[in-house]
């Protein structure tokens, strides 16, 4: 473990390089478009080189695991960590993400040429790649959740990149909110995990699970909650509705985020937490059922769509359902003690699908770039015009259809094989394989072959610049060869490299491979008959299956269903709440305000009349007393002496002990009376005289 090289030990550099690009572009390079693009691309290429080197080293070390973390917050024994984990799965994902990321960025130079927010597009792409790489190298649930949300954020930013379009603005909101429902489940799962396991580190959690320290019922709940996150992110039924709408974003974004990497993050999450699902057969079966339902529904919808990107989007959903199903069945079988290729099949298909679906989107973007429409009914005969794009698209279509010996064949066959012990799943899987081949080639024939249906657009069509075609060629090569690392018996390298549990699964040839190949060929042939030879009328078929056709064409009415059962009640409730808010709460608030004002008025009145009245009244009283008493202030010292002596005498008189006195007390009383009479008379006369003179003085 410790003998990994410095670069692998510091694998976080690969994630930080795009972050550096983002920061540099946003803050410094935004005004220089070429520099922005060049810096961003060089960073992701560097990151790609590190990833490839890492993969090589991990292969050389036979999948040894490297883990390093730093505990940045400790809460009474519960640690939140930042750390990296390098194992085969991580290495594969790193290479996939950086490869597609580099191709898409190079492609975007041509595709986004002339866009007013050219630099910002690269900044967002870099931020996304940072988040995605961080998600991949995370070593614990806490960290993966953070990056999980960050890829959601960048997805939101990029879907709504052309936010001037209402449809794009709506789509990014829809994507964000819909995935948020799944993320809520994910978060609940994390809380439960933190509560029951006491840690969020992958290894520590999985050890506890395999040791059986978490009750199976709880484990099932945790697994399903975490799977909810994957359902949202990977656009699984019933939260798949956001992905087709997300095609409103620029096509490179669709290729990178909504085909190859971010939507695969859900699959990656399930693969990464496979130990949880292995521990619970019920949860695994839920995963598998959700996967197959999603896959089937999406495939049927893709049959009838006319928007080239939407077909691809439903195709993506369908393929993701495939992977999810494979992983679910692996968990189920392993739980029951059977060997299953599901884990290897799911991750293998994740890798090959990333390449050919990325290629499909980029090629579709090239087509759209050439002909300025998304509607395949307005295309046709473009093979002659698009010398690079059309072959690349067709190679990718062959690959996804599962034609020997292209990449899709090997991975898809493993998925079929993983369903081989479950008849219902097997039949549905083969049906989906048939439909996949059919709708992909329907797309090919309508787009590139036959007569041009819109002559004017055809005339103006032109091949894309080299920056767009080179990534196509590169990815076309990968779409062919990427599967050759998983050829059973001959080169089963992938299976012996990426596996879950103690021992690797050994894939082998089986008759199912032949069956799926034949079925895929039949699908292609049917499409050939209907859309190239026109020996079978597509319209008549549509009429014949009128109800089914309408159902498929309207995407099983999922949006309408959600509108009916979710949006309307919510909106009604919201309106009701609004009116409640407006009437009751606002009324209460305003009423409180009104009451306060009235109460203030009362208090004002009280203040003015009672309090101020008391204050002023006491002042007035004092003033009036002063007005009277000031006449004592005669200015004559002798008057004061008289006054003081009078008071002293009175005081003394009151203190007398009269009992012992004889006639003298009578003398005293008589004198007292005379004195008081004289004093009062004197004072009154003095006051009168003084008042008169005082008023005279005032007048003068």
């Amino acid at each position, binding site marked *: 473990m410790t003998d990994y090289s410095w670069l692998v030990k510091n694998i976080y550099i690969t994630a930080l390089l795009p972050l550096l690009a983002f920061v540099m572009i946003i803050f410094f390079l935004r005004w220089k478009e070429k520099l922005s693009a060049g810096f961003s691309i060089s960073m992701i290429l560097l990151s790609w080189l590190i990833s490839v080197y890492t993969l090589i080293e991990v292969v050389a070390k036979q999948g040894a695991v490297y883990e390093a973390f730093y505990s940045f917050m400790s809460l009474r024994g519960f640690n939140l960590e930042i750390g990296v984990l390098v194992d085969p799965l991580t290495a594969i994902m790193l290479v996939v993400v950086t490869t597609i990321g580099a191709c898409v960025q190079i492609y975007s130079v041509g595709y986004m040429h002339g866009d007013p927010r050219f630099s910002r597009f690269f900044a967002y792409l870099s931020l996304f790649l940072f988040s995605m790489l961080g998600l991949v190298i995370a070593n614990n649930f806490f960290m993966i959740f953070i990056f999980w949300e960050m890829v959601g954020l960048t997805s939101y930013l990029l879907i709504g990149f052309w936010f001037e379009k209402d449809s794009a603005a709506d789509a990014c909101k829809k994507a964000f909110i819909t995935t948020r429902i799944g993320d809520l489940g994910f978060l609940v799962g994390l809380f439960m995990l933190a509560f029951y396991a006491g840690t969020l580190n992958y290894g520590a959690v999985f050890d506890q699970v395999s040791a059986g320290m978490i009750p199976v019922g709880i484990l099932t709940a945790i697994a399903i909650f975490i799977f909810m996150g994957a359902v949202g992110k990977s656009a699984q039924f019933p939260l798949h509705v956001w992905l087709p709408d997300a095609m409103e974003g620029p096509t490179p974004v669709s290729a990178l985020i909504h085909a190859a990497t971010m939507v695969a993050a859900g699959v990656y999450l399930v693969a990464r937490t496979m130990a949880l699902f292995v521990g619970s057969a019920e949860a695994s079966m839920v995963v598998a059922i959700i996967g197959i339902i999603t896959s089937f529904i999406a495939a049927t919808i893709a049959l009838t769509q006319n928007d080239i990107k939407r077909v691809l989007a439903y195709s993506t959903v369908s393929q993701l359902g495939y992977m999810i199903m494979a992983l679910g069945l692996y968990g189920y079988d392993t739980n029951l003690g059977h060997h299953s290729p599901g884990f290897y099949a799911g991750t293998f298909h994740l890798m090959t699908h990333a390449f050919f679906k990325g290629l499909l989107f980029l090629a579709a973007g090239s087509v759209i770039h050439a002909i300025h429409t998304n509607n395949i009914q307005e295309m046709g005969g473009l093979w002659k015009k698009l010398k690079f794009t059309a072959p690349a698209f067709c190679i990718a279509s062959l690959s996804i259809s599962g034609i020997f010996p292209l990449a899709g064949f090997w991975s898809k066959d493993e998925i079929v094989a993983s369903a081989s012990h479950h008849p219902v799943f097997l039949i549905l899987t083969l049906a989906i394989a048939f439909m996949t081949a059919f709708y992909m080639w329907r797309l090919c024939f309508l787009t590139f072959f036959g007569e041009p249906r819109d002559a004017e657009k055809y005339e103006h069509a032109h091949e894309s610049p080299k920056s767009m075609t080179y990534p196509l060629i590169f990815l076309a090569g990968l779409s062919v060869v990427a599967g050759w690392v998983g050829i059973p018996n001959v080169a089963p390298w992938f299976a012996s490299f990426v596996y879950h549990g103690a021992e690797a699964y050994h894939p082998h040839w089986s008759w199912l491979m032949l069956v799926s190949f034949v079925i895929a060929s039949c699908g292609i042939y049917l499409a050939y008959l209907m859309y190239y030879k026109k020996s079978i009328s597509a319209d008549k078929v549509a009429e014949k299956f009128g109800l089914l056709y309408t159902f498929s064409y309207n995407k099983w009415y999922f949006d309408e269903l959600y509108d009916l059962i979710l949006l309307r009640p919510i909106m009604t409730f919201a309106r009701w709440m609004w009116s409640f808010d407006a009437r009751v709460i606002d009324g209460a608030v305003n009423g409180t305000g009104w009451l306060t004002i009235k109460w203030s008025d009362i208090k004002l009145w009280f203040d003015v009349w009672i309090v101020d009245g008391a204050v002023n009244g006491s002042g007035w009283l004092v003033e009036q007393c002063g007005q009277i008493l*000031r*006449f004592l*202030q*005669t*200015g*004559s010292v*002798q008057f004061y*002496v*008289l006054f003081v*002596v009078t008071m002293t005498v009175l005081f003394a008189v009151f203190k007398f002990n009269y009992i012992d006195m004889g006639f003298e007390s009578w003398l005293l009383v008589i004198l007292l009376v005379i004195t008081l009479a004289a004093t009062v008379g004197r004072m009154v006369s003095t006051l009168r005289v003084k008042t008169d003179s005082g008023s005279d003085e005032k007048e003068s």
Partner: protein
Amino acid sequence: MIPYLALAAILFSIGLFGVMTRRNTIGILMSLELMFNAANINFVTFNKYVVSDGLVGQIFAIFIVVIAAAEAVVGLAIVLLIYRNWKGIDTDHFTVMKW
């Protein structure tokens, strides 16, 4: 003893009467001297009849006499000042502190 004290009381009352009623400021000062003397008579009387030994009362009286002299000096200086400013020393002239 009581006749002496009574005499002092009456003399004090006379002085008080003078302070209250004299128009002339010098007259007021004279009345004050009467009051001082009344107090002195008391001290000397007590010295003789109440204090069994020693001459504390008399010494106190001596101090009073000295202070009275000082008072008279300062008072008369003030009177002269008043006379200079008001051209008269009647109390009616300087009721400037009137309300």
